[in-house]
């Protein structure tokens, strides 16, 4: 187990911010190394420096003991350092195989591509990942999880000596994650150095050997063995204090009349006979595997897809929701999308515009006039209450960290004062502190009388937050589980509902 890649005294500043301050880290061969830290602690900057996207102000990066300075990820890759980024970096219309081999399609610009060889080679890497996909399949037909694995396959295919995985499991189901861990272990056995960035501490303890923790651009620890450390030790290092054990005050019993009630609801997307009721002050979880139709159900209720049967009742009155605008402005329904960057936020616009988008209509005066100050007055307190870290409300939201972005995408619905909030996968790519904060917030909202629907594939999250859990599969409701916070019982009950169909 020798040291492969070494970071020494690296500092990096941006205008007004010291992103990294004298940071050190050592990646060793045959070792899975966890890089931990809250959002904004400096993990992304460190990865960018390793791959040559950014250059350190001071300090150095050593590869095999000698200093290196890469000018692009390409140069880094040529020296055996590959990264799997959080963003989807695949060409949708190209085949899986072509994506994996994209930089090795041929020797010269005009060389003919040998697709047979490409697909053969790609198939090899897919097999290694236990992925049962034909390499000729276009990437656009894959599920999100499959795309993530293809990206890993692409990084592997570079025969990398160091593999940097930036939250690889964010969009994977537990089973898929387990498969990935198997592969990581196999790679470790082959001598690869692996850097594993994740917010899911359970995974870190499951797979990693050593750990580096960053906080506010400083090393809290530098490449120490994980063995001997407990979850609380790591959390304390990350957030600077002990993790608060969720001890939420019991909430008043929800009202008896449901705020939203679906009866025999069916949609153009294929939902059939959906019966669902959410009462004010209640948190209803919607659990299901990817493709169960949960987000789609939410969007159908919002009026984005056509309702083909059954009825929707809002506060006991049968309604027809024609559009999201209708859902928001007339029925007080809000939706926090799972796809923060694609559907939740307008990345090129400011924090103020993103948080205020839902209240513009309410705040606009005569002639539709709307002053920035008016909006700021309305959303400012919410932004502050949610502790969104931003230099100003005018900051472009694309520049904020994922956690802060997520807070804003929730803040806009709180500002709008919705009566029913549908929260879809709220903690994807969110650090522990923000995640706990969001959970508290959801409870707080429910206590205040908001009806909440929580969609998540994260079983612990579901059991932690929801009052009762409705199980969906194949665009139908499969059953309901009362949540008594007993993880084993509840999770088994949920899985039983899902597998009931498979048996039938």
């Amino acid at each position: 187990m020798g040291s492969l890649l070494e970071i020494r005294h690296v500092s990096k500043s941006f205008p007004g911010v010291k992103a990294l301050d004298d940071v050190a880290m050592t990646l060793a061969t045959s070792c899975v190394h966890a890089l931990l830290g809250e959002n904004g602690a400096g993990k992304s900057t460190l990865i960018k420096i390793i791959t040559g996207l950014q250059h350190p102000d001071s300090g150095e990066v050593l590869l095999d003991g000698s200093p290196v300075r890469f000018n692009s990820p390409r140069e880094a890759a040529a020296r055996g350092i590959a990264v799997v980024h959080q963003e989807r970096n695949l060409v949708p219309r190209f085949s899986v195989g072509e994506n994996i081999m994209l930089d090795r399609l041929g020797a010269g610009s005009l060389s003919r591509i040998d697709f047979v060889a490409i697909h053969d080679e790609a198939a090899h890497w897919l097999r290694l990942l236990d992925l049962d996909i034909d390499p000729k399949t276009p990437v656009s037909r894959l599920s999100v999880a499959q795309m993530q694995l293809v990206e890993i396959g692409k990084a592997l295919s570079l025969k990398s000596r160091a593999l940097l995985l930036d939250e690889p499991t964010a969009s994977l189901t537990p089973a898929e994650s387990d498969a990935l861990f198997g592969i990581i272990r196999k790679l470790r056995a082959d001598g690869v150095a692996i850097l594993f960035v994740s917010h899911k501490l359970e995974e870190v303890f499951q797979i990693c050997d050593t750990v580096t923790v960053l906080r506010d651009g400083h090393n809290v620890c530098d490449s120490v063995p994980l063995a001997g450390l407990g979850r609380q030790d790591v959390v304390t290092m990350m957030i600077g204090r002990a993790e608060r054990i969720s001890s939420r005050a019991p909430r008043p019993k929800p009202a008896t009349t449901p705020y939203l009630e679906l009866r025999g609801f069916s949609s153009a997307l294929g939902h059939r006979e959906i019966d669902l009721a959410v009462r004010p002050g209640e948190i209803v979880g919607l659990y299901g595997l990817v493709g169960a139709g949960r987000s789609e159900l939410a969007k159908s209720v919002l009026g984005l897809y056509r309702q083909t049967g059954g009825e929707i009742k809002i506060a006991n009155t049968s309604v027809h929701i024609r559009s999201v605008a209708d859902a928001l402005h007339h029925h007080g329904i809000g939706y926090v999308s799972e796809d923060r960057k694609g559907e939740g936020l307008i990345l090129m616009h400011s924090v103020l515009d993103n948080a205020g988008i839902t209240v513009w209509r309410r705040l606009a005066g005569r002639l539709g006039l709307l002053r920035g100050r008016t909006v700021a007055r309305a959303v400012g307190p919410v932004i502050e209450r949610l502790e969104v870290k931003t230099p100003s409300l005018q900051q472009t939201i694309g520049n904020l960290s994922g956690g802060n972005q997520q807070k804003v995408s929730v803040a806009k619905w709180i500002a709008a004062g919705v009566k029913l909030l549908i929260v879809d996968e709220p903690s994807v790519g969110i650090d522990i502190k923000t995640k706990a904060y969001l959970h508290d917030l959801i409870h707080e909202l429910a206590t205040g009388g908001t009806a909440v629907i929580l969609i998540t594939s994260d079983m612990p999250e579901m059991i932690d937050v929801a009052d009762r859990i409705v199980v969906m599969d194949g665009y139908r409701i499969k059953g309901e589980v009362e949540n008594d916070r007993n993880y084993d019982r509840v999770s088994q009950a949920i899985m039983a509902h899902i597998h009931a169909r498979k048996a039938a």
Partner: protein
Amino acid sequence: MSSVVTEPLTENTGTGEQERLPVLLRLLLSNEFGLLALIVVAAAIFATALPGFTSPFSLFTLSRQIGIDTMIGLAMMAVIVSGGLDLSVGAIGASSAMAFGYFAERLGLPLAAAIPFTLALGALLGGINGAVVVRSGVHSFIITLASMSIFFGVMIYLTKAQAFNGLPADVTAFGRMKVLGSVSALLVVTLAVCGGLTVLYRLTRLGREILAAGANPRAAELSGVPVGRTVIICHMLTGALAALAGLMLTARTGAAVPSMAGHLGQDWLLPAFLAPVLGGTLLTGGRVSVIGTLLGATFVTVITSGLLLMRVSEFWVQAFLGFMLLAAVLIDRARHTILKARGMV
């Protein structure tokens, strides 16, 4: 882009003191500032080298040209914001102007009625574009390519290409009117519209919804913005502004002329795209600069005018114009890079 670039200095929503420097930097980095600097430099050079450049008549024609070209640019800008485009601006402009001729000359309507009717017609034609784009889901390029032919064709069919040159004297007088010495009244109209559009995009609900829908239609839709309706409104605004540009050209020409925008109205396409794009409006939508559009049109007009006055052999004027344009964007890019490098130390 979950970078830490902007990891905050303070826990809460920043204070003025720390923002001041970035604001200045942002101003210096802005596209508008770059254009303004280029315009000032070019104008200073022309004014010293070419005595005719600052003559009252030259200033008058310059301001008038800027007024009209900016209006054409604003018309296109209004739809670019939504992420679409409108090839039929010229056709709408010419058709509306001809309709104005019909209203004012043939029907004898007073201007107070003829002008609103004309603008309404422009908005209607734009609205048809928008509605078809939204309903069909086909890219606005193809829809407006077709409607360009149809609008222009109907206009030519109805008018048989005969101009209206018996317009009320007020129209022509307005086209020649000067304010503040030698500034064309047409530029004043344009400046007023610029002001109105700035208010629209900055200070109204609708404006913000337009920007949101243009930047990320999916996110806007899910946040309760009626994107379809917003896109139609953008097209209507384009139509109305194109009609206004047509009216301004009518005032300048003293007649409603079917050839004011060339065959199918295609003569307008270049100024229509050039001004907003130079001014920093994103072709993909969601970002807009009204002042930039004004400055973009000003830049092109000043350069063209200078080149013509310099008596560059006219067959080569176009080539020079192209080189100047290229030089301008390259200088702007260099300035951007240098400032950014300085700022990022």
